[in-house]
């Protein structure tokens, strides 16, 4: 077994720990820091340091070490946390993240950045901790081990004395054992070690709690491979006795531990002296870690066992989950095929079969739901990054803003959560920059100084609704209209508020008086809208002048299932995403207008919509070609509306989206495929693509009529020939 095998585990866990750290740091109440939270922050740094030390990630280890020192002072109340200190901590966290990424890519982290952050941290330690004036404690972290250790023992006053722990390593091969023992030496002094591959016992004199040791070791081995307990009850007692005695606790407890080790297994006693002498040497390279350990106080709650998370969740590759979803989809289709057959049978003579079928149907649906829920992750995954965004953006803008989140537990498909982060970040920044006013302005308006930004998520039907709500100035109708005219957009004063608000999604549109580096360049909102539409969602804006703006994103819960409208053209069935369908109507002669040549438009209220004959675009034979006998479905795609001419509407149904490109290629006018209840494949139409297709067909016909045949627009999509 190679130690590099564990790298990935370490990276993943360290990443999670850093995320936790950031969350704790942001939640921290600076006036009254919660001891529990400070401990939690300390533990995250400590765990990362432990892992980094084991794998030899030197820069990461050193940075975390310095960081951990500061955090340790903080949790003992020796360092008064201020906002700027927390900012430095956050910066350190980012730095650690960068280092982690560098190691992950097999590179060495940026040395300059590393030195800079170390200097900052050391400086902070010197300034802040010495400034407290009580002399002895809080020596800068870079000081030699012994000195720091003494100083800190002194500072802590009643620092827990070293206790003797018996650590059993189960099922560890010989070559890995040495490595693990070396790791244990970072926590204290190894007094004795013995055993075989199956069970190897190490007696360790340490001030670190058993839980902490376990949590660090879990980076390297499975939680069930390690067992810790106090060496003997008397040892613990002896160690405890020494605690109030004096600062000499350390040598004393060492003395106490020694005889106990000797009274233990005889071979352990034999090994004890040698291991004691070698221990300090071995510990040399990782020495700086040591000063931390004596400071663990008795009041420190047991570290959250790292292994605990593994019991409640497992990591599974998305591929496996998708395969299960696929198979369940198949099961549902088979079940509905059977159902059709059974429904034709006589219910009286085949009663048990019919009953069985209804049971099967229920179970299959439950199964599908359960399987789909595997891919769902809570919105917290998305929301958790915003405290940082809000904090940084607001301080950059000189605004005071409080962030509230609601509905963090609302679940959403993983692929969607990943793709909603960017648009959402943009909307949040926009609200912070343009929405919420400066504190002085707010006071002048009689509003509370502190602006509020609320992020919320909730389920509604088959959709998730995400809202970004601020209590800022709201959108300014006149300003928007004026700006729109300036940009050459066609607007009129009679436009409804809704229509005016939608203007902010027009490309190159910004109403900010000045461009800041946060937002206001006018790029982005159009991209936001396009991205959200790309996910099958929509954006709505509600705004009241002086009271704030709410931007609402409506998204489907998953990309794997789509609410579809099945339509018929000729003998073929196609699916339209229901989210694109606005309405359907029977066109009359008065509604249809012919435009130059073949183009047909449909008038709906004040709008003229391009007409796309689906049978023409997709070459369907035997379809209704007379527009007046077709049904027109008004659809929306990429911000434009079209009228599709089809033969018939069949009905709404949920369909499982299947990728066409897995085995074939992209097909123009088609976004994906699905499997219908009878096992046939139906294509899901892509509105914008369909429009391009029909345009190109018309052009092709035109050119073939023209004698001066101009070449077809080149395209990578179609072979029209």
């Amino acid at each position, binding site marked *: 077994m190679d130690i590099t095998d564990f790298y990935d585990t370490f990276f993943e866990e360290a990443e999670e720990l850093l995320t936790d750290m950031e969350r704790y740091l942001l939640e921290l109440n600076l006036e009254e820091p919660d001891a529990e939270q400070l401990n939690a922050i300390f533990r995250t740094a400590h765990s990362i340091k432990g892992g980094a030390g084991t794998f030899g990630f030197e820069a990461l280890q050193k940075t975390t070490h310095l960081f951990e020192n500061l955090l340790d002072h903080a949790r003992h109340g020796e360092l008064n946390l201020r906002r700027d200190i927390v900012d430095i901590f956050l910066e350190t966290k980012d730095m650690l993240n960068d280092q982690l990424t560098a190691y992950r890519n097999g590179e060495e982290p940026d040395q300059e950045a590393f030195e800079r952050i170390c200097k900052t941290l050391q400086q902070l330690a010197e300034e802040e901790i010495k400034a407290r004036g009580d002399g002895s404690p809080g020596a800068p972290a870079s000081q030699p081990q012994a000195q720091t250790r003494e100083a800190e023992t002194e500072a802590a006053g009643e620092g827990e004395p070293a206790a003797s722990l018996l650590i059993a390593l189960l099922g560890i091969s010989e070559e890995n054992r040495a490595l693990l023992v070396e790791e244990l030496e970072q926590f204290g002094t190894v007094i004795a070690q013995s055993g075989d591959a199956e069970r190897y016992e190490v007696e360790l004199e340490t001030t670190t709690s058993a839980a902490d040791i376990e949590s660090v070791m879990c980076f390297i081995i499975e939680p069930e491979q390690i067992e810790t307990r106090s060496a003997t009850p008397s040892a613990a007692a002896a160690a405890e006795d020494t605690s109030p005695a004096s600062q000499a606790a350390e040598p004393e407890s060492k003395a106490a531990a020694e005889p106990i080790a000797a009274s233990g297994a005889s071979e352990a006693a034999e090994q004890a002296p040698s291991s004691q002498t070698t221990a300090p040497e071995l510990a040399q390279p990782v020495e700086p870690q040591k000063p931390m350990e004596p400071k663990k106080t008795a009041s420190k709650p047991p570290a959250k066992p790292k292994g605990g998370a593994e019991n409640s969740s497992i990591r599974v590759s998305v591929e496996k989950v998708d395969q299960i979803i696929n198979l369940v989809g198949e099961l549902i289709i088979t079940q509905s095929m059977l159902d059709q057959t059974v429904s034709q049978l006589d219910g009286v003579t085949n009663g048990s079969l019919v009953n069985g079928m209804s049971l099967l149907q229920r179970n299959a649906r439950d199964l599908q739901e359960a399987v789909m829920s595997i891919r769902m992750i809570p919105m917290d995954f998305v929301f958790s990054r915003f405290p940082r965004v809000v904090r940084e953006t607001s301080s950059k803008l000189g605004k005071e803003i409080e962030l509230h989140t609601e509905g963090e537990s609302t679940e959403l498909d993983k692929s969607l959560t990943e793709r909603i982060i960017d648009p959402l970040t943009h909307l949040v920044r926009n609200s912070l920059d343009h929405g919420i006013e400066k504190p002085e302005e707010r006071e002048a308006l009689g509003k509370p100084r502190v602006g509020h930004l609320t992020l919320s998520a909730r389920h509604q039907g088959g959709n998730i609704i995400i809202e970004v709500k601020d209590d800022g100035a709201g959108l300014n109708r006149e300003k928007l209209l004026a700006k729109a005219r300036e940009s050459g957009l066609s607007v009129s004063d009679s436009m409804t508020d809704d229509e005016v608000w939608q203007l902010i999604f027009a490309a190159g549109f910004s109403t900010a008086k000045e461009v800041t580096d946060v937002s206001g360049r006018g790029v982005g909102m159009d991209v936001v809208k396009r991205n959200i539409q790309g996910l099958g969602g929509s954006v709505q804006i509600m705004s009241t002048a002086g009271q704030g703006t709410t931007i609402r994103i409506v998204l489907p819960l998953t990309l794997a299932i789509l609410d579809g409208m099945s339509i018929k053209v000729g003998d073929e069935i196609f699916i339209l995403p229901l989210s694109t369908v606005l309405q359907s109507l029977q066109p009359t002669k008065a509604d249809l207008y012919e435009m130059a040549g073949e183009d047909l438009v449909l008038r709906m209220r004040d709008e003229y919509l391009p007409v796309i004959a689906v049978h023409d675009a997709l070459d369907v034979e035997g379809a209704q070609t007379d527009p007046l006998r077709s049904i027109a479905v008004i659809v929306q795609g990429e911000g434009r509306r079209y009228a599709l001419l089809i033969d018939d509407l069949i009905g709404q149904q949920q369909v499982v989206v299947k990728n066409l490109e897995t085995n074939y290629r992209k*097909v123009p006018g088609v976004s994906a495929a699905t499997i219908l209840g009878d096992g046939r494949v139906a*294509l899901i139409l892509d509105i914008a693509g369909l429009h391009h297709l029909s345009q190109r067909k018309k052009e092709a016909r035109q050119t073939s009529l023209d004698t001066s045949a101009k070449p077809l627009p080149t395209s990578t999509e*179609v072979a029209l020939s």
Partner: protein
Amino acid sequence: MSRLTSDALSATEGENQQFLVFSLGEEEYAIDILKVQEILGYENVTRIANAPDFIKGVTNLRGVIVPIVDLRIKFHLDKVEYGGQTVVIVVNVFDRIVGIVVDGVSDVMTLTPNQIKPAPELGMSMSSDFLKGLGSLENRMLVLVDIDRLLTSKEMALVEQVEQVAG
């Protein structure tokens, strides 16, 4: 041609190979049996608009969408009929699953290396690039199709080709 001869050479050096023999019209063709995933009847194929005529469409193979290619159209056979005998051979080529329509599947043959002869330059219907060679049996001749090359070729348009510009 040098590539072909080297192919034939490597085949002579190699072990006996098994081929699945199928018919297109009167002719007998064969493909490497290891490429074959399964054999289906021809049914429920959904047409894809604006695709070349030999791409019949896509079908549902246990939840996977699989394109169906009619080799008879591709090879310009006179008679293309779909009946009870029409068979789809599902092949797996570079992790892509493709169904090919043939008139019928007859048997599985083992060819020794010296039964595989290099293919001569054929007519327009099929470039010899897509042939592994000709298999000669007592009174039969099998056209050994290099299904990998054939299905990933540009003219099959089965795979997205970045630089391909159709017009």
